[in-house]
């Protein structure tokens, strides 16, 4: 037994050994945040030609790294398919997951994940070529439908067609990229995934206007980050970084004015609490007082992230819709930092 331990220790000299205690300590010791993202969904998480990752989900990873490590670039992105993402997180390959992932009860309780606040309210939609002349998802009897395996969309689809008693041929596919290839080659008539994903995929087509999204949204897909069960402090960090970014938009803190506002306590106690000039909220989650300031400085507030990657001015051109602040008619409603 001792010999084995010794051998294991020898192997570990290769490895980053760290204490069991907490993910926060692990991440700090490593000096790098391992963030599980998608293998490539333009606008949410995709590498460019130099291998640099960018997107909506990527910015949440960067915000957490900025809050925890003080440097938004100290992130190692772990690309995952729909199938491998939870295994990667649970086995400790990743510290946190931002991969357009739907929060569900079984994932929370049975897959042992702790979900962070929802950062994108989505629903499952269908995309079809305009030429097919389909107006509703209920006209899809007998169609071949491309789906990404290992997602909630796969389950919703089975339920939707079962309830409406229509038949279909599922064409299971690993990644969004292959789904796109197969859809364009007309291996399938329909591509179904989260409406945001459809918009992002369509934006990358050569002729986006030849394809339409059907009106039906067949499911609720509250997308959010997640961490492993069993480390409440780490879950709190993830939760409050996301909340801080959402609250920042509500409070009017932006990437440009955050440095100015954070210099000294101002008139607005909400802003003061968030930026660490009043109270000691950082130490409650094991961080310093400037945690939120660094996160906002690195990626901006929620609205800025949205506009930069998937907003109306980008190729993906998503409207805020449900994802507007609650004051503006949306359902984005962050718990207060107080």
């Amino acid at each position: 037994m001792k010999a084995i331990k010794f051998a294991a220790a020898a192997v570990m000299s290769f490895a980053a050994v760290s204490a069991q205690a907490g993910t926060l300590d692990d991440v700090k010791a490593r000096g790098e945040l391992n963030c599980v993202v998608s293998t490539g969904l333009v606008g949410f998480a995709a590498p460019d030609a130099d291998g640099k990752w960018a997107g909506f989900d990527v910015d949440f990873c960067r915000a957490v790294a900025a809050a925890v490590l003080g440097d938004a670039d100290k992130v190692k992105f772990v690309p995952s398919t729909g199938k491998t993402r939870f295994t990667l997180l649970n086995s400790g390959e990743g510290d946190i997951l931002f991969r357009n992932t739907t929060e569900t009860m079984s994932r929370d309780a049975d897959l042992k994940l702790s979900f962070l606040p929802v950062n994108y309210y989505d629903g499952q939609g269908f995309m079809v070529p305009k030429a097919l002349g389909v107006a509703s998802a209920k006209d899809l009897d007998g169609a071949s439908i491309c789906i990404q395996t290992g997602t909630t969309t796969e389950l919703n689809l089975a339920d939707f067609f079962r309830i409406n008693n229509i038949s279909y041929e599922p064409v299971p596919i690993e990644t969004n990229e292959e789904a796109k290839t197969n859809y364009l080659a007309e291996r399938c008539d329909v591509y179904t995934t989260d409406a945001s994903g459809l918009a992002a995929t369509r934006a990358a087509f050569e002729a986006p206007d030849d394809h339409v999204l059907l009106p039906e949204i067949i499911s609720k897909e509250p997308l959010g980050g997640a961490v492993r069960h069993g480390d409440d402090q780490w879950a709190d960090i993830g939760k409050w970084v996301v909340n801080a970014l959402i609250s920042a938009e509500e409070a009017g803190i932006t990437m440009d004015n955050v440095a100015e506002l954070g210099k000294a306590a101002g008139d607005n106690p909400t802003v003061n609490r968030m930026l660490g000039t009043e109270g000691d909220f950082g130490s409650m989650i094991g961080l310093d007082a400037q945690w939120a300031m660094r996160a906002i400085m690195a990626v901006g507030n929620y609205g800025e992230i949205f506009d930069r990657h998937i907003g109306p001015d980008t190729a993906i051109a998503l409207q805020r819709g449900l994802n507007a602040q609650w004051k503006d008619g949306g359902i984005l409603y962050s718990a207060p930092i107080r």
Partner: protein
Amino acid sequence: MSSQVSGHAENVVTTDRRGLLSRIWNDKETRSVIIQVLALALICAFFAYIIRNAVVNLEAIGKGFSFDFLWQPASYDINQHLIEYTSRSSHFRAMIVGLINTVLVAIAGIVLATVLGFALGVLRLSKNWLTNKLAHVYIEYMRNVPILLHILLVHGIIVHTLPRPKSAMNFGDTVFLSNRGLVSPTPHPEPLFWIVAAMFVAGVIFAILFRRWARRVQDQTGKIYPVFWISLLAVIVVPVALYFLLGSPIQWEVPALKGFNFKGGWNIRPEFIALWLALSLYTAAFIGEIVRAGITAVNYGQTEASAALGLSRGRTLNLVVIPQALRVIVPPLSSQYLNITKNSSLAIAIGYMDVTATIGGISLNQTGREMECMMIVMLIYLILSLLISTFMNWYNNRIKLVER
């Protein structure tokens, strides 16, 4: 002087002790026991260690270890299921569906690869320079490019170059080929058909018995019957004739284009076709070389000797060359069959729903039971491998040279 003595005495003690150790070590029996006990202890310690780690790690995130999830509804659909399956069926059933799909593509691959491989092996021995070289180029290309690439390439060609269902290739309004697969009519046998089926079974039994009888007659009298032609008559010609005499007692459900896809009939999906073709074409190249080596291993003197005995070319091949070549061919052939089975797990690259994709893929992901699912998948492949090797060993023993 005294110091010298004591020094000497010390020396004696040490040599004695060393002597004991080296005596133990040099004793073959004891040494082998010691080594084995040590090895066993190391192995047990290793497993105990990793199992303890797994238990601790699973506990830390509050996961258990249980196979109960197998009886929960799977909730996802599978496009190719040879047994009844809906999204309400259990994960266990999904696993069986996947297993059947794996076995299906493996068997189909083994059959096609064997046929193509033997053809290639014969072509490689052909005196025709052009054919020989073509076969050689084909074999070298196939063998030196990864199988995954072949699978992706074949799938790509099928999906991209075959026509869409609306303009599917039409073979006599009954069979249609498009990038959604090959659709063919489904047979619905009428009662009279079972007479034909019975006739076929009878034909097979007759052929087997006739073959035995003819061999015995040949051994005793030297008289040779045309076994092949008579068997063909009994097994194929008679049942087919009967089928038409009874007025074709099978209703064919002919597929027709309706909406997006063909409705009715059997659909062989492009994923199956791609995987099957790629596996067969790839493995056939290896089998071709095995067959060539097997045939060249038979001394040419054997052929000459049988010619001297007056055997025809066909009989020389059947009775002299092939039985000897098979002894060389079968052992490597069985490892190729194992390779086909294991390589079929690459199905996930193109979305064919085999056992790796169902229980080892979607079920694993939807339930989060990595440990249990991967154990099942590995166990299934181990059992399949074991079955194939057992069968091939049995066959190998049957054909192997019996030395008297």
